[in-house]
């Protein structure tokens, strides 16, 4: 039986480094793309998961999957769209794994309490909006965030969420109505239960 020596391991490490790290972008292109997209993607992940820690973890995973996808993109906009799709899928996977865990914990160490620097009124408003977002369904949350926070088109939302573009309009309308119901304190329209 052949034993594996340290030099074998070193050789394999080197060959792996040379051959198998086939990332879809070079460093300069990646860094430019990351500078433009990392914060919006992090904000999207944080709003969908309700956790800054999970957003941190998923952010790295999203970029890793993007780089390993090997997919070619016509424009940066397509690449960005694909990144949001990966992020959405990561959140869905996370939710499937942790079905019993509350998604939004309004705690001081989470993202749900805005950081220092905001004045009291802003802080109150943000906690209110985050609480309202936490009370609607995850898909509605993603829809609304992409449409109104990111300014994505229906086609882009469809691509990011794996939905038909034709159905986005009505889904968006319903989601908006539900969020508005929560914001206005109308439980019958907003859905009084916390979304899971």
């Amino acid at each position, binding site marked *: *039986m*052949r034993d*594996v020596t340290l030099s074998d*391991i070193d050789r*394999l*490490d080197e*060959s*792996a*480094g040379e*051959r*198998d*790290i086939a*990332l879809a972008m070079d*460093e300069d292109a*990646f*860094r*430019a793309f*990351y*500078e433009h997209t*990392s*914060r*919006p993607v*992090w*904000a999207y992940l*944080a*709003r969908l998961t309700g956790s800054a820690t999970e957003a*941190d973890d998923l*952010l*790295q995973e999203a*970029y*890793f999957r993007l*780089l*390993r996808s090997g997919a070619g993109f016509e424009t940066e906009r397509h690449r960005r769209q694909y990144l949001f799709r990966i992020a959405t899928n990561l959140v869905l996977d996370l939710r499937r794994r942790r079905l019993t865990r509350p998604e939004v914990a309004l705690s001081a160490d989470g*993202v749900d309490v*805005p*950081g220092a620097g*905001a004045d009291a009124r*802003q802080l109150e*408003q*943000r906690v209110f*909006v*985050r609480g*309202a*977002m936490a009370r609607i369904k995850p898909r509605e949350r993603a829809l*609304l*965030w992409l*449409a*109104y*926070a*990111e*300014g994505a088109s229906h086609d882009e939302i469809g691509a990011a969420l794996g939905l038909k573009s034709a159905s986005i*309009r*009505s889904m968006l*309308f*319903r989601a*908006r*109505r539900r*969020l*508005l119901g929560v*914001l206005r304190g109308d439980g019958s329209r907003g859905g009084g239960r916390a979304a899971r």
Partner: protein
Amino acid sequence: MRHADCPREAELLESLLTTGPDGCPDGLRSHTEACASCGALLEVALALRGEHAASVHEASVPSSAVMWWRLQMRARREATVRAFQPIAVAQAITLACAVGVLAAVIGQVVPEASRVVAWLRALGNSAAAAGAASVPASAAQLLSPGGIALGLAGALFLIVTPVAIYLALSDR
């Protein structure tokens, strides 16, 4: 459920995204005040745009250099794991072959082993009867091909077991 959104919603949203609420043209502003659908859009969009701006400002993401380095390290680690997979498979096959050979040898030796056990029992009986004269003849039986095979099987077992334990416990 029917939805009754306004045809000017797209215009309103575009205006909000590009110029903000203060940049809305007067016509659109007065329309929004009168239109329930556009009013709802304005309320939701303003809330989410504000939250978006604050979240993006607050986001403490790693620098692009750090993230690139992390991704490189992870890609390298995964590539190394992939590179080791054939070796691990070969080792597993070798171990399986060794175990198979050991089992075959033991299978051959078992009848001979029963003879050795019988001889040991006879040896004990004869020793108890103080008849030491029969011992040399029985010892010769132990050196028969069956006895040697049993010894070889034992030796093989002693060699293979540590290797198997090493492979099971080693990290790489």
